[in-house]
């Protein structure tokens, strides 16, 4: 209890000190010491409580109710006074405020007082949150000290109000601790409103017209949530006679309307705070605030309070799927819509903001499902997201101070201009979307949990993952492009680097140590029988660790064995200027630089349209949640706990066979492709073994690279492509295979971006567009396979009694469609082509030569065999010769299509691939799940 009180009350001390001190050195030390104390206290709390389990405290606080009431009324008065700058259109803000004050006043004064029994509570969820708030939030505060000094040096027109600024930061932390430790909902509500207040004041810090407008919007939407919260409190006081969170959850699980209604109302408040559709606008507007504020809002405070309260109610949603499912679908929808919206943005902070909303959507979806595995995934997501997003915001802020821009396009070449900062940013981005890093592990667990609850949710996740991949990878491409920018002096202060460095290390460490975190912190929180970690499979965890090890060790290998020989210039149609690297001689003898811009897919969808329709659907789902209330009073039995999948059986024989035979088979396939193509064109064509000669020759060429990173990317591409196939043929987890394949492709794309040649860069852009097109269908392949045999294990799929092609005809056709894209066959050979018909010289591989190109080629062979392995799965129940013949037929058809089709543009590709995935794949999966399974 003392530690708990310390965490809530202690931040007020630095807050008060900082509100009077304006000396930079003193401020630095107050923040450092304060943050250190908080972090130590949080660790101490974790150490004390992890062993003893959940505990409740009811200290005798005299006049607690009265004090809360007085505090709330003061808060409302202050906010009302703050509302004096509103415009006519914002009149609803004070209106909501007054309504809320009225509801609270009526509840407190008009109804008999409700005795508070358990005022504070500590369980593993609150410990996890406290660690995040103390460590990540604390680091953000430390980062803020030098940042704000720079900020005011660069913006002399903004009034220096750093004293209230730092006061608010620490007040924010205090209120967050209050939220996670309060078991008394009245008290929790008070802290809840304080966070809304802090958020409002921090957003309007700059004092510009825009920041004031956005601050009012944030205040208004949060007050709307607050109103729902207040109504929930009123309902509880009137009908349930308790304000204790744990009692409300118990009552809610039992199906009492007295508790269910407030649960939905308070979850609504959580949705507004977590900026879910249709309330996302306030968080987007909040980025007018200085970057530390965004980092704080997005990583450790505010939005996390929203998902925290929804997660607290997850047992209720598990017991009442009719209420939980609309909530889960709202989360899934938010994930899909905001991921797409992020694609349209070039402003780094807006991309980050949309990504925050999207990931919180996943957490909400997990909470709505409520099964132990879903909650496990949600907690991992909350943890990983806090660390990575805190890092990313800080890195973007630091970049902004150097570049005077937060546009991603302007971050081109950061890897040579500011290597350390680019590395921090890359680590943050990797942490957000790629295997083996944190968020992907969370998504993986989400997918498994969603499949057991509702395949529709899993489909939303499948479609939402592709744009996520797209917008992160194109950002990475910008950073990785070696544009020959001069090195920029790093202006970031020590505290900024300590903060970013710690978070970067945490991001990396989190993906190595998450099994430990899971065992110590998360699993005790869940139902005793649940073993979500083992659902991922211990073999798969080793594979993840292997991937992590490879990623970290490979750069070392390149450090110790540097490539000899000079660097080559990028290909610029031969018109390179010798004296100016990276520029070319254009018309009239003038020198030109090449520039590429990312794709924003504005001609496919617009931010406005997405949010409008997403908002309408979101409102509908919220309404459905309320409408489901009356019917859900009779408690429905939760879904039966699904049996754990059998331990994965890795077959070393398959792995070995793949490693040895795949390049042979892949090379022969490539040769057959060339012969068949020649015959179709009335030619004789090369010998069947030609591809092997080509690779042998390439390996013997003495070729240079454009920059030192290229080899690392190529090596990673080849390694992970082989790893993906190896996993597949060893009978491993199909999802992990797809994730590894994605990781490999991202590295190939980076290899294309890195030379900063327009040809490679356009090829890389197009490769990303291709990935965006095929990714949903690949995930649907895994979902469909799971629906058919209840396992993601390839070994289980092969053992299926009935050919999958009959169970999953739609998924099969969809797969054949996207395999065309993946094999780079016309009409979808946008990024590069194995034949001569490519207007981009060689697209993606233009600036690779000699051995590098040979490795890419061999990796393609491995990849193609893997893709045909996917096809083979559908016939695996037949005798081997028949299945192989069917697979060969599919391949021949792909070659035929390659020769019979003209290339389509990327819009048609993405649209058609998504429509096919939706109409054939998704419908197949849904039909299978609703009308019995084979």
């Amino acid at each position, binding site marked *: 209890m003392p530690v708990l009180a310390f965490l809530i009350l202690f931040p007020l001390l630095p807050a008060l000190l900082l509100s009077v001190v304006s000396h930079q050195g003193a401020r630095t030390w107050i923040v450092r010491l304060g943050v250190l104390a908080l972090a130590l206290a949080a660790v101490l709390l974790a150490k004390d409580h992890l062993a003893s389990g959940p505990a409740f405290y009811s200290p005798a606080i005299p006049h607690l109710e009265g004090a809360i009431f007085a505090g709330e009324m003061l808060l409302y008065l202050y906010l009302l006074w703050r509302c004096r700058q509103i415009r006519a259109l914002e009149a609803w803000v004070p209106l909501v405020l007054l309504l809320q004050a009225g509801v609270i006043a009526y509840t407190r004064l008009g109804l008999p007082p409700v005795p508070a029994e358990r005022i504070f509570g500590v369980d593993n969820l609150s410990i996890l949150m406290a660690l995040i708030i103390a460590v990540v939030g604390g680091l953000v505060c430390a980062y803020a000290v030098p940042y704000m000094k720079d900020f005011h040096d660069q913006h002399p027109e903004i009034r220096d109000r750093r004293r209230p600024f730092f006061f608010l930061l620490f007040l924010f932390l205090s209120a967050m601790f209050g939220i996670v430790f309060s078991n008394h909902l009245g008290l929790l509500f008070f802290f809840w409103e304080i966070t809304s207040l802090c958020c409002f004041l921090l957003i309007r810090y700059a004092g510009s017209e825009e920041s004031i407008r956005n601050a009012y919007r944030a205040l208004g939407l949060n007050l709307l949530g607050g109103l729902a919260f207040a109504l929930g409190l009123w309902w509880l006081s009137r009908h349930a006679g308790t304000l204790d969170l744990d009692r409300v959850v118990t009552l809610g699980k039992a199906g009492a309307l007295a508790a269910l209604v407030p649960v939905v109302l308070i979850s609504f408040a959580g949705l507004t705070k977590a900026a879910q559709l249709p309330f996302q606008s306030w968080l987007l507007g909040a980025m007018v605030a200085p970057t530390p504020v965004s980092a704080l809002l997005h990583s450790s405070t505010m939005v996390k309070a929203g998902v925290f309260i929804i997660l607290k109610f997850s047992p209720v949603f598990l017991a009442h799927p009719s209420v939980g499912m609309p909530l889960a679908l709202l989360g899934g929808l938010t994930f899909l819509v905001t991921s797409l919206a992020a694609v349209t943005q070039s402003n780094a902070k807006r991309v980050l903001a949309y990504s925050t909303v999207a990931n919180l959507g996943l957490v909400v979806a997990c909470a709505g499902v409520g099964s132990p595995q879903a909650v496990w995934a949600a907690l991992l997501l909350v943890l990983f997201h806090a660390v990575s997003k805190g890092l990313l915001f800080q890195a973007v802020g630091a970049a902004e101070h150097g570049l005077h821009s937060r546009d991603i396009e302007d971050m081109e070449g950061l890897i040579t201009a500011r290597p350390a900062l680019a590395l921090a940013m890359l680590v943050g981005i990797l942490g957000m979307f790629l295997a083996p890093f944190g968020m992907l592990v969370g998504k993986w667990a989400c997918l498994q949990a969603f499949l057991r609850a509702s395949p529709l949710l899993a489909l939303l996740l499948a479609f939402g993952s592709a744009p996520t991949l797209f917008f992160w990878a194109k950002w990475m491409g910008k950073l990785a492009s070696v544009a020959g920018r001069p090195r920029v002096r790093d202006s970031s202060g020590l505290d900024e680097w300590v903060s970013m460095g710690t978070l970067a290390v945490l991001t990396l460490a989190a993906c190595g140590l998450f099994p430990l975190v899971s065992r110590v912190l998360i699993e005790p929180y869940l139902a005793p029988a649940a073993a979500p970690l083992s659902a991922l499979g211990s073999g798969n965890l080793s594979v993840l660790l292997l991937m992590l090890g490879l990623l970290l060790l490979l750069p070392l290998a390149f450090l110790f064995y540097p490539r000899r020989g000079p660097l080559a210039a990028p290909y610029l149609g031969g018109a390179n200027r*010798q004296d100016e690297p990276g520029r070319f001689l254009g018309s009239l003898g003038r020198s030109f630089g090449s520039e590429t811009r990312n794709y924003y897919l504005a001609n496919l969808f617009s931010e406005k349209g997405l949010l409008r329709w997403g908002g309408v659907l979101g409102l509908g789902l919220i309404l459905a949640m309320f409408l489901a209330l009356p019917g859900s009073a009779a408690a429905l039995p939760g879904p039966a706990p699904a049996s754990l999948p059998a331990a994965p059986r890795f077959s070393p024989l398959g792995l070995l066979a793949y490693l040895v035979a795949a390049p042979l088979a892949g090379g022969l396939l490539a040769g057959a492709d060339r012969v068949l193509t*020649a015959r179709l064109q009335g030619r004789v*064509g*090369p010998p069947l073994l030609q591809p092997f000669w*080509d690779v042998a*020759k390439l390996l013997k060429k003495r070729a240079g690279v454009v920059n030192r990173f290229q080899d690392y990317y190529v090596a990673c591409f080849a390694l992970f492509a082989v790893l993906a196939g190896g996993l597949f043929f060893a009978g491993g987890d199909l999802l992990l295979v797809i994730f590894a394949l994605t990781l490999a492709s991202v590295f190939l794309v980076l290899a294309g971006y890195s030379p900063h040649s327009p040809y490679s860069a356009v090829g890389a852009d197009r490769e990303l567009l291709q990935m965006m097109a095929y990714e949903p269908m690949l995930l649907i392949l895994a979902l469909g396979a799971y629906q058919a045999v209840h396992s993601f294990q390839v070994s289980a799929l092969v053992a299926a009694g009935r050919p999958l092609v009959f169970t999953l005809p739609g998924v099969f056709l969809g797969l054949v469609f996207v395999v065309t894209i993946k094999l780079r066959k016309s009409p979808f050979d946008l990024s590069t082509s194995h034949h001569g018909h490519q207007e981009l010289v060689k697209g993606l591989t233009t600036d690779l030569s000699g051995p590098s190109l040979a490795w890419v080629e061999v990796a393609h062979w491995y990849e193609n065999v893997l893709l045909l392995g996917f096809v083979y799965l559908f016939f695996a129940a037949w005798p081997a010769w028949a299945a192989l013949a069917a697979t060969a037929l599919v391949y021949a058809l792909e070659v035929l299509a390659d020769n019979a089709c003209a290339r389509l543009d990327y819009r048609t590709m993405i649209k058609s691939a998504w429509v096919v995935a939706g109409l054939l794949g998704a419908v197949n999966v849904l039909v299978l799940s609703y009308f019995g399974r084979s």
Partner: protein
Amino acid sequence: MGVFSKSPWILHYDASSCNGCDIEVLACLTPLYDVERFGIVNTGNPKHADILLITGAVNEQNLPVVRTLYDQMPSPKAVVAIGACALSGGIFQDCYNVHRGVDSAIPVDVYVPGCAARPEAIIDGVVQALGVLEEKAAAPAGRGEGGKAVAA
């Protein structure tokens, strides 16, 4: 025969040719001649190419381009000059802006005469270049770049 003669990848550059020879070069790819039978691929990318086919009499404007393309080809590599202009400047040799043939810009290994050069002659030139490639591959790195002329 080594691997280089099994997989000659070609870059074709038009250094101010009248397009007569270019059409003949491209004719080699058609079903009638089908040079892919010998593993020959028209890559269009110096970084992938082993053999540079140049038509036309290199002028002031494209001289640096010819040199850059040649430099960007990884070793071992061979150059085949195709057509009268590429050999000596041809009928353009007295023009104020014309260099007299490709070997005034970069070392040429094989000369294929003709106006325009016939596809058979071009193919023969490439086949002779294969021998040059193998020779250069056998030579230690950095040596044996160009210089040796083989008349076709």
